[in-house]
Every structure is written in C-alpha cells, then in structure tokens.
C-alpha cells in the first residue's frame, strides 16, 4: 500500500491530477470515518474530509516520502477533526446535550443498538483517548502505525487505549448498566 501511495504522490508532484484523485479514493473512506467518529456529525465529517484532502494537496511538496503516506494523511485528519471539534465547542462537554450519534435510553435495550451506545460514549472520551480508539478500531492501524501517526511511543499508545477501554466501560455502565449484561 505504501509503495503504491508513494508512486501516486510522485505522479501528483509531477503534475498528474488524476493521481491525486486515486489517492483520495484510496483514503477518503478512512479519513471520513475517522472524522465522523471524532466529530459525531456527518455534515462536519464531510467538511473535515474535504479540508483534509485540500491540505494534503496543498502540502504534497512538503510530504517526506521516507514516511508512510497514510500516516501523514491520518495525522492531518485527526488534527483537522480535533481542531474542528474544539472550535465547535462540543455541546456534549459544555451543556450535556447529546450529539447526533447518541441513542435514547430505549435504543440501548435492543442488541443492535449497542453500537450506537458505544458511539455516544466515544464522544465523551477525552481527545487523546478518542483518537487512539479511532485509529485502532476505525482506521484499523497497528500499534506501530498508531505510534507513527500520533508521534508518541508505542507504550504510550497502549496505555491510552487501555485507559480508553476502561473509560468506555464506565460510561456505558453509568448510563445503561454493566456492559454485556442481558
């Protein structure tokens, strides 16, 4: 994957606009889902995804090919989503209102709504926990890749992910009872 991306980046730098379209097609789904899980709103995720790729395009010349392209893109995506969320002053954190992805209490009763409950709980994590969960479970990166994206040691990534799991468990238990209970 990395080699193909590197080749496409090289073609972009040579003026091949179609190569950039291919890069977008290869990564837009992950970028969009990362933004969606960080922001919790499809409309915001859409705008964030657009901004991410515009930034990628504008700064292609500054991309260091010794690094993996996706880790650079995902780093930009995380920053964009987290900054956008900060600017928006997430209502959840300030007023207790729930974002779009949070279900009502009745929804949790149904097994298929467990994912919705998790999505809501995910919005309540602090940024550094949310980003590791998103990179692990949405972008499906390894610890090594997450460490590269976040520019922190692998042990820090693991520690944050462990804390995030514990916090999610608490949040779900607080609102809906013990996780996994019938």
């Amino acid at each position, binding site marked *: 994957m990395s080699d193909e991306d590197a080749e496409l980046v090289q073609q972009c*730098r040579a003026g091949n606009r179609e190569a950039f*379209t291919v890069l977008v097609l290869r990564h*837009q789904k992950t970028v969009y889902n990362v933004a*969606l899980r960080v922001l919790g709103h499809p409309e915001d995720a859409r705008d964030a995804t*657009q901004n991410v790729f515009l930034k990628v395009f504008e700064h292609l010349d500054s991309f260091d090919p010794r690094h993996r392209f996706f880790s650079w893109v995902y780093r930009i995506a995380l920053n964009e989503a987290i900054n956008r969320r900060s600017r928006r002053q997430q209502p959840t954190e300030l007023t207790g209102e729930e974002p779009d992805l949070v279900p009502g209490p009745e929804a949790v009763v149904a097994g298929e709504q467990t994912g919705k409950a998790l999505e809501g709980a995910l919005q309540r994590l602090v940024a550094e926990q949310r980003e590791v969960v998103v990179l692990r479970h949405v972008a499906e990166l390894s610890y090594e890749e997450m460490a590269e994206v976040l520019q922190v040691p692998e042990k820090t990534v693991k520690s944050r992910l462990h804390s995030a799991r514990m916090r999610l468990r608490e949040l*779900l238990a607080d609102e809906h009872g013990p996780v996994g209970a019938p």
Partner: protein
Amino acid sequence: MTDPRLLSLLHAELDGDLDEVGQAELASHLAADPALARLRAELAAVNAGLAALPAVEPPAVVLADILAGLPPLPREPVVVPLRAPASAPTTAPLAAPVTVMRSRRVVRVWAYAASLLAVVGAGVLLQQSGLLTAELAGEAAGTLVQPGAPAELLDSVPLEFPGISGRAQAFRDEGVRLDIELANAEDLRVVVFGGGTEQVLAAPRHTDGASQQLRLKLSAAVIAAGRVNLRLEAQGRVVGEASLAFSEAAAPGQK
C-alpha cells in the same frame, strides 16, 4: 481496585499480545476472582463493540467537493499579474464578490495583544502575532491607524478559501479602518485596492493554525470609492478575492 499487573494482562489478551505464560497466569487469576472475570467480560464486550462499529461510506459529494476545490497543481502555475497595468482601473468589480453582511451593530474592538509591527512607507500599521511587511505601490490604499478604540462595524466578509480561513471587516473609526484576520498555511500576499490605489501586505504562513491580524486605515480615495477589494495571492496565483462596501461610512473628518 484491580491490580495494575492483572489489568495489563487483560488488555494484552484483548490485543492478542499475551504469550502462553501470560495466558496461564491470567487464567489462574480469572478462576479465583469472579470480579476480574466480570471485568474481563465487560472489556471484551467493549472491544467487540468497537470492532463492530460500521464503516460508513462517505457521500459521493465528498469526492466531488474535494476535486472542485483543488487549486492548480504546483507544477501548473497560473500566471497572474501581481499588479494591474497602469491603465487598468483597480476598482473594477471582482469576478466573484463575496456577499457582504449589512450589519449596523456597534461592536467593541479590543486592543490586540499582539505586538505592533511594520510601519512602512506611507505609514501602514500592521498588527499580528508574527512578521508582516508591506509594499506600497503609488498612492497607498491605507495609512497608520491607532489601536484600541471602539468602532462601528460597517461591513464584514468571510475569507474562506482552501488553506485559508479568516474574515475582513471594515469599521468606522475616524474614517474607515480595515481589519483582516487570517489563518493561512501558505505565505500570502494580500493586495488591498480601491479608489485608484493599491497596497500589498505580506501574511506569512502559520503552520500551527494560529491566526494573524492585519489592520489598515483606508485612504480618503478608497473611502470615496465606497468599496475596498482584497485579492489573496500565493506563489503568484490568486487564491481568493473579497470585497467590502461602506457606502454609508463617513468620510475622514465627518461624523
């Protein structure tokens, strides 16, 4: 409170990182500690739920919007004259004028905390968090302005272009003052023109996303024209345009 070492074993198991020795140790603890077994089940449920979160397909419009918003590739430079020819009017309507807000509300403008920099040529005062410079072409579009006084907002336009966000605002302030706030990831030239005058300001890039502020007191010629135009340029290409109108503004010395 669960033993941190046992917690570490639990998470390692969830991550598939637990070797046989660790698995055996964890199994013995789980058999003896129902609370630990419950915690393990709950964390496994969280992990399974996260792994099962559906990946959403981005709307088709995302790709279309991205491609539509792309500037020319760096290897496809668009040659745009930085200055209009001497015979060309600099107050010509912009190709795509930004809709202006006709707010008449009085706003209080706080003195900027950033340092004051760059008083150049005919006297331009620029205020921002970083370095700014100005180049003057013929009669300057603006002159020195003093900070901090309350002012009436005359016009306000967003400056939202790829890689750029900010706002330009015109205030009545012993004449008319132009405040420009910019967050730009690329070095920009901000060409301010109107009333037969032109002035170029430099807005260096701020890769950390911080914004910078430029302030300019508009000349009598610009005020008389009732409109000031902005053209943002990066690496010789136009990346954004905007226009502010202030037909109801008082000319210098008038109230």
